[in-house]
């Protein structure tokens, strides 16, 4: 046995990180097992980074409850951890009268979901808030509470808090099976055996595979659903301050146009079923159509340079609800199919998970005066590291990343395990030049320090 825990969390996506934090704060000895070299290697790698109020969530569902709870929890903890949140509000815009006709239903649903501050806006009122929007817009609903956050620093902060309060994260540890005997789990991982009294499966896109590896079968099947995005240059940032939501159809929530906490404007995501759970590939035709849609809604975007394109994969299943399975008889909890609201719902799911473990009979003594990690700021509207003297150089000029930030991200309680992790912790190479200016310096700074590398060897004549 390489390690022994009260609670093992399988998977370092946003859900696993939030669950690990909660359990550690409640006094459990927590071990998070992640098959990747860093956290956020699955569904949580690429999303819209919107903290949802849940106004449009399915009424009376666990999802709605967790979104609302997660939203409240995030607001309760973000200040202490220096996690940025920008309450931009969302404008649910109708571009035709048919779309406008759906507003009544949407308002009713929001009311039932306890989100009561929605307001109708006339075309003129919308254009007052967002003067750059296309003028074929008819009217809109304002959802004041919708917010944008840093989608990578948040889960990292959760896991750091877990680790700094007695927890442990083990990377490159893929769970391949497990046995339950005498009230104890022994999990097989690619790093060796890990013991636990309780297990929470938060394996996201692989949730069904993990359940199947342990129980022979899973009661849900992941149906990966890809979402592609186009990120526009930061000079587009001045064109948009709120999230522009489409009127949803039966099938999809639709394409959103939104500002990011880092100062860009993004259009996406699509919703495309695919076989692969890990190939988050983009497609030129789809990207072009996204750009066209964005330009229609926000004409100022035409001619605006594209900074980046990416895709994320939702752990959807054959059914729409979250797929929670409580196996009280063996102290195993599966949080499956956390499809498209997990960034928001994670902290809520963590609260619920703790309650469910109590139902299983768990009892821990909560940590008194827990350690609260303070996160470096990556948000554009707040002071970045380079504003504080004493660094040596700016490595990434587009995103203004200092050598000091890079070194810090490679140390600490949850250091970057690979280049992707380093990017998500610092934003290095994520700007408009995509590494033209800085990748050589970055290759040098990270050489031999991460699981992967930008360079494959030395140059020779």
């Amino acid at each position, binding site marked *: 046995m390489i390690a022994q825990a009260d609670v093992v969390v399988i998977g370092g996506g946003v859900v696993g990180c939030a669950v690990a934090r909660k359990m550690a704060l409640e006094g459990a000895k927590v071990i998070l097992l992640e098959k990747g070299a860093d956290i956020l290697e699955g569904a949580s790698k690429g999303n819209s980074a919107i903290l949802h109020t849940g106004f449009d969530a399915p009424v009376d569902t666990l999802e709605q409850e967790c979104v609302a709870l997660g939203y409240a929890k995030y607001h309760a903890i973000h200040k202490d951890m220096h996690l940025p949140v920008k309450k931009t509000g969302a404008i649910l815009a109708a571009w035709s009268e048919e779309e406008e006709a759906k507003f009544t239903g949407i308002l009713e649903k929001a009311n039932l979901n306890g989100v009561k501050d929605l307001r109708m806006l006339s075309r003129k009122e919308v254009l007052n808030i967002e003067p750059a929007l296309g003028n074929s817009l008819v009217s809109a609903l304002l959802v004041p509470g919708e917010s944008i956050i840093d989608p990578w620093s948040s889960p990292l902060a959760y896991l750091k808090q877990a680790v700094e309060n007695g927890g442990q994260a083990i990377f490159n540890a893929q769970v391949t099976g497990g046995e339950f005997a005498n009230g104890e789990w022994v999990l097989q991982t690619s790093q060796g055996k890990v013991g636990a009294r309780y297990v929470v499966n938060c394996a996201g896109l692989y949730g069904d595979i993990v359940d199947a590896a342990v129980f022979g079968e899973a009661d849900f099947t992941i149906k990966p659903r890809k979402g592609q995005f186009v990120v526009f*240059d930061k000079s587009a940032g001045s064109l948009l301050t709120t999230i522009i939501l489409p009127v949803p159809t039966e099938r999809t929530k639709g394409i959103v146009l939104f500002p990011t906490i880092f100062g860009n404007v993004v259009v996406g995501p699509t919703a495309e079923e695919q076989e692969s759970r890990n190939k988050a590939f983009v497609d030129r035709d789809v990207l072009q159509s996204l750009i066209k849609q964005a330009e229609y809604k926000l004409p100022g975007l035409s001619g605006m340079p594209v900074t980046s394109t990416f895709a994320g994969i939702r752990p959807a299943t054959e059914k729409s609800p979250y797929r929670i399975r409580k196996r009280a008889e063996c102290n195993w909890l599966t949080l499956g199919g956390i499809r498209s609201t997990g960034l928001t719902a994670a902290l809520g799911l963590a609260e619920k998970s703790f309650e469910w473990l109590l139902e299983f009979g768990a009892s821990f003594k909560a940590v008194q005066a827990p350690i609260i990690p303070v996160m470096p700021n990556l948000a554009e509207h707040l002071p970045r590291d380079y504003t504080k003297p004493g660094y040596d150089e700016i490595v990434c000029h587009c995103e203004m990343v200092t050598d000091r930030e890079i070194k810090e991200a490679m140390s600490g309680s949850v250091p970057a395990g690979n280049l992707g992790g380093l990017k998500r912790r610092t934003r290095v190479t994520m700007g408009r030049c995509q590494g033209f*200016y800085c990748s050589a310096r970055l290759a040098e700074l990270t050489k031999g320090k991460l699981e992967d590398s930008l360079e*494959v060897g030395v140059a*020779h004549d």
Partner: protein
Amino acid sequence: MTKDVLDMTCDVAIVGGGPAGLGAAVALKQAGVANVTVLDRESEPGGVPRHCGHPPFGIVEFKRICSGPVYARRLVQKAREEGVKILSRTTVLALHPGGELSIASPQGQGTVTASKVVLATGVRETPRAARLVSGGRMHGICTTGALQSMVYLKNLIPFRKPVIIGSEIVSFSALLTCRRAGIKPVAMLEENASPSVVWPVKYAAALLGVRLQCECQLLSIYGNERVEGVQIRDRFGVVRDLECDGVLFTGAFTPEASLVRMSHLQSNKTSGSPVIDETGHCSDSAYLAAGNLLSPANVAMKCWADGRRIARSICSEIAA
């Protein structure tokens, strides 16, 4: 406690210490302008030639042929000799009306106030994302600039057998860089019917044994951690896979114009370059622009000469 503010004034502030900026700075000093300050965000000034490890540079400027790095050092040395103040590791964050610049450096932030500002921030290449190329985002995808910096400044290589996309003059530099580093490109793909520049590319490709394929489209990039291949459509319309461990995007120059885009200055909507009049002035007459920020992508010598032209424009204005 030290005050972390770096405020300063100067006669002419130059944003960017590449050939254009340094050319302007030297000419201004030679014309008797007292305080000329060059601000460059890199640790070493000199601009793009710093990482162009091959000749020919310096024929007009120094009457001899040298490699890019040697040329860059000469430009810097010359400027220092003429009394130009060069501040490296100093990033210009924002341009304000009337010639006021917000700057950041490891010593702190501050404001530079200048009678005239010359913008000379150069060009870079369009990366993969902005070209909307299909496929995954794995290691081994870069531009010539990144490759050259890796090879010539750090002695590292990002791949061993890449495909090269494009056949501009810079693609020729890319081939030379590969040759120098022991990288063996598997093919060079050009969408058009013939290479953008014919003889150097053909010559270098042949020299390296690299097949130049025209009318050939890059469809997507695949792989896991690293690039494992690309899908292409060749000139017969056949779609096929090409094994490689990297994709080198060359050319498709785009001005490094974000400062201008985010400022009060009028700019060209697509390229981002500042709109200038025939004397090189921007819409705010405290600002002028020079070098490849304006016309992607001239050779260093032309940018240097353009810097000198802008310097003359400033001097005649002062004299008037």
